[in-house]
């Protein structure tokens, strides 16, 4: 089980601690996330994996009473420093949520919104091109190319989630965060998105929180197991699921606790 030493580290988390008011949700997490890999964060409910995910694009900033300590660096730059503009950050780090949440606008406008507000497409034809590329990359283009003006909410659940993925990648992020993206989807829609992730990781770094260990085992290269705010173990996915080092990890993935 050799580590691929030539993998570049994209995201470095050092001693990340998160408090919600008085309660501590994460206890000093140290974790490296590699570029062009899918890293899965697993663990029982309330273990802090979603909280950790949201630290990477500073979505925890919008929660009242949430304090983040430690550092999270993307490409060696600490994203919690004052020099970093949160809005710019969120264009570099996209997010897909558990329940598909397309804007109640047309499919075109859903994908075009990000590039528009960031001024990424000065002309209409460039915008059209960006929308097409994003929808193609998200595997949705063929299904919607004839009805781009239809409402985003008129699509099926799986299609809506792919629309949200297209929306996230339209602004050309480096990193895509996914918070249980398939929980609300049927197995076929889930499989489509898993296949998509395999393609996407060639161009993006993907971090996914998932409740399904089978899914984590299927799609990720590295896995991190969280429990009650601690990072218990992390490593190559094959190792974690065939022969984990930590007994607690073993118990969790075998369905013995949590």
């Amino acid at each position: 089980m050799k580590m691929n030493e030539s993998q570049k580290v994209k995201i470095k988390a050092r001693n990340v601690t998160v408090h919600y008011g008085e309660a501590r949700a994460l206890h000093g997490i140290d974790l490296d996330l590699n570029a062009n890999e899918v890293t899965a964060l697993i663990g029982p409910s309330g273990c802090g994996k979603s909280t950790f995910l949201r630290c990477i694009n500073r979505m925890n900033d919008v929660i009242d009473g949430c304090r983040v300590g430690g550092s999270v660096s993307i490409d060696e730059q600490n994203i919690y420093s004052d020099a970093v503009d949160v809005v710019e950050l969120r264009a570099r780090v996209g997010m897909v949520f558990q329940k598909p949440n397309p804007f109640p606008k047309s499919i075109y406008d859903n994908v075009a919104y990000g590039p528009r507000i960031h001024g990424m497409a000065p002309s209409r034809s460039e915008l059209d091109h960006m929308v097409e590329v994003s929808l193609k990359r998200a595997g949705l283009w063929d299904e919607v190319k004839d009805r781009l003006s239809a409402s985003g909410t008129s699509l099926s659940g799986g299609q809506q989630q792919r629309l949200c993925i297209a929306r996230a990648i339209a602004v050309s992020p480096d990193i895509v965060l996914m918070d249980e993206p398939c929980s609300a989807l049927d197995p076929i829609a889930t499989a489509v998105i898993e296949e998509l992730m395999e393609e996407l990781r060639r161009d993006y770094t993907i971090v996914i929180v998932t409740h399904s260990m089978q899914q984590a085992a299927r799609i990720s290269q590295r896995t991190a197991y969280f429990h009650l705010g601690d990072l218990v173990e992390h490593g190559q996915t094959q190792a974690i699921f065939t022969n984990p080092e930590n007994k607690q990890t073993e118990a969790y993935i075998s369905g013995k606790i949590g």
Partner: protein
Amino acid sequence: MTDYSDPDFRAARLKKRYQAEKRFRAYGMAAIITAGLILVFLLSSIIYSSLPAFSHHHVRLDINISEDYVATDTPEEGNYLGLVRAALRDHFPQVTGRRDKRALYKILSIGASDAVEARVKNDPRLIGTQISLYVPLSDDIDLMLKGLIDRNLPESDRIVSDRDLAFVDKLAEENRIERKFAFALFTNGDSREPEMAGINGALAGSLWTLLVTLIVSFPLGVLAAIYLEEVAPKNRYTALIEVNINNLAAVPSIVYGLLGLAVFINFFHLPRSAPLVGGLVLALMTLPRIIIPTRAAFAAIPPSIREAALGVGASRTQVIMHHVLPLAMPGILTGTIIGLAQAAGETAPLLMIGMMAFIVDVPTEVTAKATVLPAQIYMWANNPERAFVARTSAGIVVLLTLLLVVNAAAIYFRRRFEKRW
């Protein structure tokens, strides 16, 4: 212990449950029917009593527009009253004596001369010719012709004397009397004479006032709600503000009138009885009624939309303006329009700032003196003249129609915005 598996027991219980349900439904039906009946009764009695105000009896007079009364180059300075009286005298040559002549003149409304004046001004070439024109009769004659004054009563109990009756009967025999639609009700301002009194002044006053109310309260209310709901940190101070806003909605409206008097009129010296001041006072009153539903509309939008927008890199302002506000619009509009509709029916606060006054002219700007519909209705209701009874009801009908239009607008706009969601 009751045996729940006993089929007889279960059948009996089931029967009782169904009966209880039927009774419940019957109560509901009874409540709706009662409310409906009350409404129908109310509306129909108002509409019925307003009907007389919508028509007025006119008499066709042959008028000789003699140059003795009107000069060709100055038609506006003509003695139209004289013209009309001359026409009457010509028609009833047998009437002599000053008292009889005065009685004769009184069968016509003051508006008769206005009608002639308007005609001549419109076409000065008529001067020197004879025209035949329908002019309005006085309110008492009109009521008598409509049967609202009983001509069979003894003369001492009647407002209309026998002599007047004789004049009118003669004119009726000549087929000169006709009942026409009372346009005056809608074109004129207030007047001492009931047949000349119109709702236009009050309607215009109400519309100007509501315009000011809308312009002031809508942006302030919506922005305040946006700030409180989306931007302000949730601490003790904002909670305090919230409680106070909720309480403001329950403050008696006359208090706002006192505030308006003290601040707008006495301190800022804004003109009394003006829609500007009325609008400002009502805006203060409507503000909490806009803020509260607007906040509710914002709170009803699921956080997932906001998160999605933030995730794509929208700033807080962009999230609000591009996503939350458009989606909250139906709720905001409904709240605003209902608040406006309530303001349209307010009288007490406007009392304090002087909009309960006899104002003849139709206001043409926000600083002109004006009154509002509910005030007008109240004043007409207090007027002892019989003809104002029908006019009061007519005023109520107009006010109700206005409110109906405003509510219909609310439903229309809400439907239009809801489609996009």
